[in-house]
């Protein structure tokens, strides 16, 4: 068991002929991910690393009905369109790697996906990996190993750091999700936690947060309310960061004191979460609760 992706995941790569799309198609194939087809409008008929390219998602699905997941490398101006195309074709998991999508576009897209029953991971995220089975993303595959710990993270590179530290200590991961760093993302901490709660393979969870927003506070509430019952270890990046960009007075009013490092750590600790001071403390903290 695992969540979101596994050996039955069959992937469509949108934007497969671009620099990143083509490079990471190679790396995903090397990892063992099943990639059935790619899409780049206007480039149908060609192939990338042996993967056939189509002009549209519908065309690709006609030839490869086994596809159930899309990963999007399309440039920001066209990425939302690519995501709508994947959702409308009935794909239930859409991973958006693209950075720089206007936040209003993401708001609309995420709401649409929800109504259509599709899960969006991202945008501006590293993707999802179930070690040894499938990597739908851009993370360096070799730092992950299979095991009992789930990870959900707001930061891509921090995820690699922590997975690598766990792997060195012999602690494997069930599924690792990078939910993305944009102000609005599809899958949230609490939605990912719901999936991990239901996954029998996951025995404990690592939350990698950062300052800003209120996802860590919401995760803490979920634990307090008993909707997540597995042990959790967290790290929040930005303990020493100077106050960043503020959105006028409204930003401060709307957060009502939430969003900062102290607020997040306080909420998490109150919920019984062990909060690491550095990412390198995580392996020893998590091994105590396994």
């Amino acid at each position: 068991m695992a969540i979101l992706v596994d050996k039955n995941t069959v992937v469509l790569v949108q934007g497969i002929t671009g620099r990143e799309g083509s490079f990471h198609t190679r790396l995903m194939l090397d990892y063992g991910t099943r990639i059935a087809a790619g899409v780049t409008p206007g480039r149908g008929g060609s192939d990338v690393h042996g993967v056939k390219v189509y002009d549209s998602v519908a065309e690709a699905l006609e030839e490869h009905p086994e596809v159930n997941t899309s990963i999007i490398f399309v440039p920001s101006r066209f990425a939302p369109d690519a995501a709508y195309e994947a959702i409308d074709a009935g794909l239930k998991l859409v991973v958006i790697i693209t950075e720089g999508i206007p936040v209003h576009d993401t708001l609309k897209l995420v709401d649409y996906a929800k109504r259509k029953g599709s899960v969006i991971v991202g945008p501006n995220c590293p993707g999802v990996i179930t070690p040894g089975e499938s990597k739908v993303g851009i993370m360096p595959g070799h730092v992950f190993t299979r095991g009992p710990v789930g990870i959900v993270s707001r930061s891509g590179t921090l995820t690699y750091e922590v997975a690598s530290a766990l792997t060195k200590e012999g602690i494997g991961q069930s599924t690792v999700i990078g939910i993305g760093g944009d102000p609005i993302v599809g899958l949230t901490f609490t939605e990912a936690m719901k999936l991990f709660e239901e996954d029998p393979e996951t025995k404990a969870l690592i939350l990698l947060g950062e300052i800003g927003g209120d996802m860590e506070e919401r995760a803490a509430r979920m634990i307090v309310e008993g909707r997540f019952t597995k042990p959790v270890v967290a790290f929040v990046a930005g303990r020493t960061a100077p106050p960043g960009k503020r959105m006028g007075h409204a930003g401060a009013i709307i957060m009502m004191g939430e969003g900062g490092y102290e607020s997040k750590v306080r909420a998490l600790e109150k919920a019984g979460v062990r909060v690491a001071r550095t990412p390198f403390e995580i392996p020893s903290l998590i091994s105590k609760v396994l």
Partner: protein
Amino acid sequence: MKLYEFEAKSILRRYGVETPPGVVVEKGEDVKAKILGSGLEPPLVAKSQVLVAGRGKAGGIRLANSVDEAVDIVYRLFEHPIKGLKPRYVLVEKAVSHTREFYAAVTLDRGNRGVAVLASLYGGVDIEEIAREKPESIVRHSADFNVGLRSYEARSIAMRLGLPRELQQGFASFLQALYKIFIDYDAELVESNPLTLVDGRFVALDARIIVDDNASYKHPELAVERVEGGETSVWESKARGFGMAFVELEGTVGVIGNGAGLTMTSMDLVYEHGGVPANFLDIGGGASSERVKRALLVLLEYPKARSVFINIFGGITRCDEVARGILEALKEHKGAPKPVFVRLSGTREEEGRRMLREAGIKVYDNPIDAVRDAIEAARGV
């Protein structure tokens, strides 16, 4: 992208919101001719157009009882720095005598993945304090992004504020205009603080709009040259000119990372091991060697950084590109040499590490060792 007050107000007017009559004067223009030509009658208020908060308290807003006094003030405002920045524009407006100051804003609601509409009868500079001490005095409404702010919702905000019946529709229209601007301009924030009442009509005395940087390509009409924030140092502008997030700090250890989370963690690590970071510099995801080179060149020249700690864990960022950028920067750098400590892991780490080692640069697998050495080197100078 923050808009100047005069830009924000001109947008508000196009959406039917009343603002005090005014004229914008650019540095170098004939101030007197401009004010006289506008037909504005005293009393006037001159407002320095800078993109930083706290302008009023920093002396950037001044009253004038005659045109001559206004002209004199405008010239002085051009020379009066607000948080280190002199304005390029000054807005001269008819002074509106008022007693009440209200607050209204539309902003992104991250938590609820929607749009928040905020309003209060107690606006002005102390609005945040009021939000803390009397949160019930701020009405907060979450609008459905797909439906927008309906008239009845806007009216109900007015009712919840306790506005008398004859003012409710006017306030509702004001909120709906802000909401429409928020949507049409891909804004992160549309705020009027304060707005006031003049003869039963709501007038925006100040206005603030922040447009999502990622959406600025949709709004080419906003492409006027703008000087962001007076707190921005030369070094910050330099790095931002290349599209990189840079924050100047007080310490001696230069920090470069990829991704905000890892870069912040790198700073946390510097503190954790007894050092103080000289900066925050995030090269972002998938940086080219050119980008890495520019980032490192900034830090090699940046006098506060006595050593540089580069912490890269590549996913979409490729370690060989990073190594190439580092080598090019070290080659191009003309000033005094500065010790550089590179932690390089992830995508194509073998290639990247080999390139650096062959050039005689020590590469670390473990960031803690790199941090310790960088702190040590910064002390040793």
